[in-house]
């Protein structure tokens, strides 16, 4: 008999958990104007799950009006090697600037508080065989870049860091300056939009063969980075970036979605396929609802799709067998998409 006797947890050691669990706030410290640095530890003192440079943690920051958990992603700033703490730095987004209150709740945390976290999750990892790396940060986008820089220092690689910040708002400047004392690591600091663009163009044009570039910052900065890399003839496969937020999307067209069991759902402009699926009682995992995290991926059987996410590669779009349901829709008014949900 090959009967199943017992099912054990996948990882015996507690330092490999990634599912929702509570961590304790061990320290809270301001690191720049409107930026706090929060240190989390396991309440029982067990080691935390290692992570890839550039990974983020998902924090439950509260509940929204409908009673749904509000979860925000925050980049981990360490090198990820057998960590005993998880550290994040969070910029306060005021409501008048479009903040939904999540970052304000992180700012209100105090030592001893318990926070629900999930992950770490990796969506901005370095290429393991890179020979050199160009790290580009603007504003709060410094958090995953600091993690990359620390990993480069830890493993003895070489990196050039370009950090664009506003005076008084350069979070983690001291740490980056200290890293740049190490052989193989250089730091360029730059203030102001035009100076940043000029320096970016100059540094992109002057990298050794085999360099991979990584950037994180506000949407307009990342657009400038992509354009500059293209002008300097960088192959897209060596140009990496992470977005904290997606640009505003138009409400889109009316279309319908046919589900695996034949049910047809109308999706009006301003409503996402994800929202329509959830309203119809079909559970689809989701997180950012902005087309940046990749969580809400849905298999597609037929239908022409307008991909509006920032996750899928060109090849994956061409293959056309998946879409990200929080942002992508039918390509034309009244179109029909068959999905396997």
């Amino acid at each position, binding site marked *: *008999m090959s009967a*199943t006797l017992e099912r054990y947890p996948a990882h015996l*050691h507690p330092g490999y958990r990634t599912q929702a669990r509570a961590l304790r706030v061990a320290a809270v410290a301001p690191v720049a104007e409107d930026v706090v640095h929060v240190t989390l530890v396991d309440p029982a003192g067990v080691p935390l799950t*290692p992570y890839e440079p550039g990974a983020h943690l998902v924090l439950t920051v509260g509940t929204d009006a409908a009673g749904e958990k509000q979860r925000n992603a925050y980049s981990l700033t360490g090198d990820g090697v*057998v960590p005993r703490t998880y550290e994040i730095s969070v910029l306060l987004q005021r409501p008048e600037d479009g903040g939904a209150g999540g970052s304000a709740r992180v700012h209100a945390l105090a030592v001893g508080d318990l926070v629900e976290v999930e992950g770490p999750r990796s969506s901005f990892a370095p290429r*393991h065989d890179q020979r050199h790396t160009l790290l580009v940060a603007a504003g709060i986008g410094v958090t995953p870049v600091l993690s990359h820089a620390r990993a480069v220092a830890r493993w003895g690689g070489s990196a050039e860091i370009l950090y664009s910040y506003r005076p008084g708002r350069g979070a983690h400047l001291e740490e980056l300056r200290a890293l740049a004392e190490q052989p193989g690591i250089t730091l360029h600091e730059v203030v102001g939009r035009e100076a940043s663009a000029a320096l970016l163009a100059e540094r992109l044009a002057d990298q050794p063969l085999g360099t991979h570039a990584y950037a994180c910052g506000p949407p307009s900065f990342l657009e400038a980075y992509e354009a500059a890399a293209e002008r300097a003839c960088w192959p897209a496969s060596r140009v990496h970036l992470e977005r904290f937020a997606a640009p505003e999307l138009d409400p889109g067209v009316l279309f319908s979605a046919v589900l695996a069991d034949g049910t047809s759902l109308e999706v009006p402009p301003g409503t996402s396929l994800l929202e329509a699926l959830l309203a119809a009682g079909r559970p689809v995992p989701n997180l950012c609802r902005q087309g940046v995290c990749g969580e809400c991926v849905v298999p597609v059987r037929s239908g022409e799709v307008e991909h509006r996410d920032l996750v899928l590669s060109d090849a994956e779009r061409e293959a056309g067998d998946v879409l990200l349901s929080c942002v992508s829709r039918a390509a034309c008014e009244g179109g029909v998409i068959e999905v396997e949900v």
Partner: protein
Amino acid sequence: MTLAPENPLAPETPAAFPVRGHTARLPWPFPDDLEAFRYSVNVEPARLVRQTAAGSWGGTIVDLGGEEYGAIMADRRRILDADPHRVRLMPGMGPACWDLLVYYLRDLAISYPHVMELSEHGDVFHWRNHALGTDQRFVVGDASTLPYDPMTFLGREIPDDLLLVKERDGHLCFDAGLVTFAAAWSVSFDVGMTMTEIHNPVPRLTREGVTSRAEQFLRRLPADQVYRRVNWTLSASGSRKLDVSLEELPEWGTDIPALVRDEDWARLQLRIEVEHFIRLPMTGAVTFNIRTHMTSLEEIRQIPAWRRQLAQVVLELPEDLAAYKGFLDYREPAMAWLTAPDRTDPDRTASEKELA
């Protein structure tokens, strides 16, 4: 001291047959009702305990091999000392090897607490393996604190061949390996290849879409689950010898022709490989660690359910698969020997009658 895994949850399972040791621990590769074998993405969650006709297996990720542990490790260390090319690392795989080492030492210390101990103070680890006499302090990430690179250090403590795959330019590549017990392939030849390139010699696999489904599976392997897979063949050697790699071809190349000539079928070995897939969190590398087990037709013959099933599966296998696995030319006489009633054993004769 015991090498039995500590598994407080595992119920006592009396062996269904009075066999002990090697046979009782053997990961029999076929489900009970399987009559015909074809390639598929045959993966299942790890740590699932499977009962077989002779015992059970599978509660731990690492199977030290009970009383055979010392001998297997002596063989492994001898091969590594003699041939440094059995360890091959592509550029940038150092961190993934540390990731592998940390994961396995932590797992071993929990699975085998009477034999293995690990203490951690930040990045400073202290590893003790009382069965092999290892006592090593090291700093994670600092190669100068270990006598070998981290993959070799681990390979000298556990019987598994160690393979790591990582994504490069949209393909999963076999970018680091310590392999001393390969079945007619060579780590030096295969390292750096994509999964498609590696599986090219296997008939049907890529054409029937198994390779790309396997790659999809590994690419999506979640961080919170561990999977395993079992592979089997008849070994290219008529002994327990685990190392039938291309490097050692002169050592084993004449074994099977001699065995076939002498019709010495009892010595023929079923080779079973249990492979574990783990996504290592610090680097995103995925393991494909292979634990190889051998059992002779003589041993299989003792277990009526096994002899019947193996003969059925081997004889039914299409010619191209049988040729790839290397037994097309001798499978009939070998399986005839395996299933022939043995008149000196009244029990077995009875069971054969029952069959007929």
